């Protein structure tokens, strides 16, 4: 039974602003997890986050090995050629074991689950992107104002990742 006095979360809007594998997965897992709880969920892709919904880029996202203290490796080593690819490969294999889908499949699962996918108009212009560069599942290209318009209603949260 729903306890109305607790004001449960009804809708979460995520802003996906980065294209490192770890940020994109954080966003996807949270957005998909919301749907699994019956909470409405949408993602607004902006800036480098747009790479996660570009047809020719989404399967080539990398883990950041430089400027990421949690990698526990010296920045100089993280910057060596091949390090990002290696770290990415390791992370992907770990994720497959945990039944976490690759980015493309994850997007399909989310769309089938009712997650709405939006792209940021200004960022699209900045990177000279066209609608056809993005996956077909993108609902629309929105301005920041349009996006805030989608946040109306009690129980809505906006999360920036």
């Amino acid at each position, binding site marked *: 039974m729903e306890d109305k006095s607790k004001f449960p979360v009804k809708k979460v809007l995520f802003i996906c602003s980065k294209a490192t594998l770890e940020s994109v997965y954080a966003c996807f*897992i949270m957005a998909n997890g919301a749907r*699994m709880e*019956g909470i409405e969920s949408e993602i607004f892709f902006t800036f480098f986050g747009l790479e996660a919904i570009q047809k020719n880029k989404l399967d080539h996202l990398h883990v950041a090995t430089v400027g990421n203290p949690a990698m526990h490796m010296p920045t100089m080593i993280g910057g060596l050629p091949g390090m990002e690819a290696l770290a990415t490969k390791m992370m992907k294999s770990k994720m497959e074991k945990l*039944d*976490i*889908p690759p980015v493309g499949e994850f997007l399909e699962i989310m769309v089938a*689950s009712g997650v709405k996918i939006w792209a940021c108009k200004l960022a699209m212009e900045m990177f000279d992107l066209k609608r056809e560069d993005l996956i077909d599942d993108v609902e629309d290209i929105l301005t920041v104002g349009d996006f805030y318009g989608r946040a109306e209603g009690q129980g809505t949260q906006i999360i920036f990742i």
Partner: protein
Amino acid sequence: MEKVYAGKTVGVDKEGYLTDLSQWNAAIAMEIAKEEGVELTAKHFEVLSYLQDQQRKEVALSIRSIGKSGVVDIKQFYELFPKGPLKIASKMAGIPKPKSCI
């Protein structure tokens, strides 16, 4: 904890999930469904029976694996159990609350 569903006393955890699948029957599923505001159809029961099979095989459930089951696709799964498919369907199927985050 115990709860009476459809005239039968069954063991449940604090969230109402059955603790013993062998106590499950279709009438119990229908009563849990009523609490959740879902009217069960033959398709619902097909999904519940798949979930029970997986539970007996001790396979952890996820939305992804259910989508690949051939029993139901993800979109339909959400249509059948809109308020949180994996959790609600598990409850109706008489299996433990799923621990999966995906």
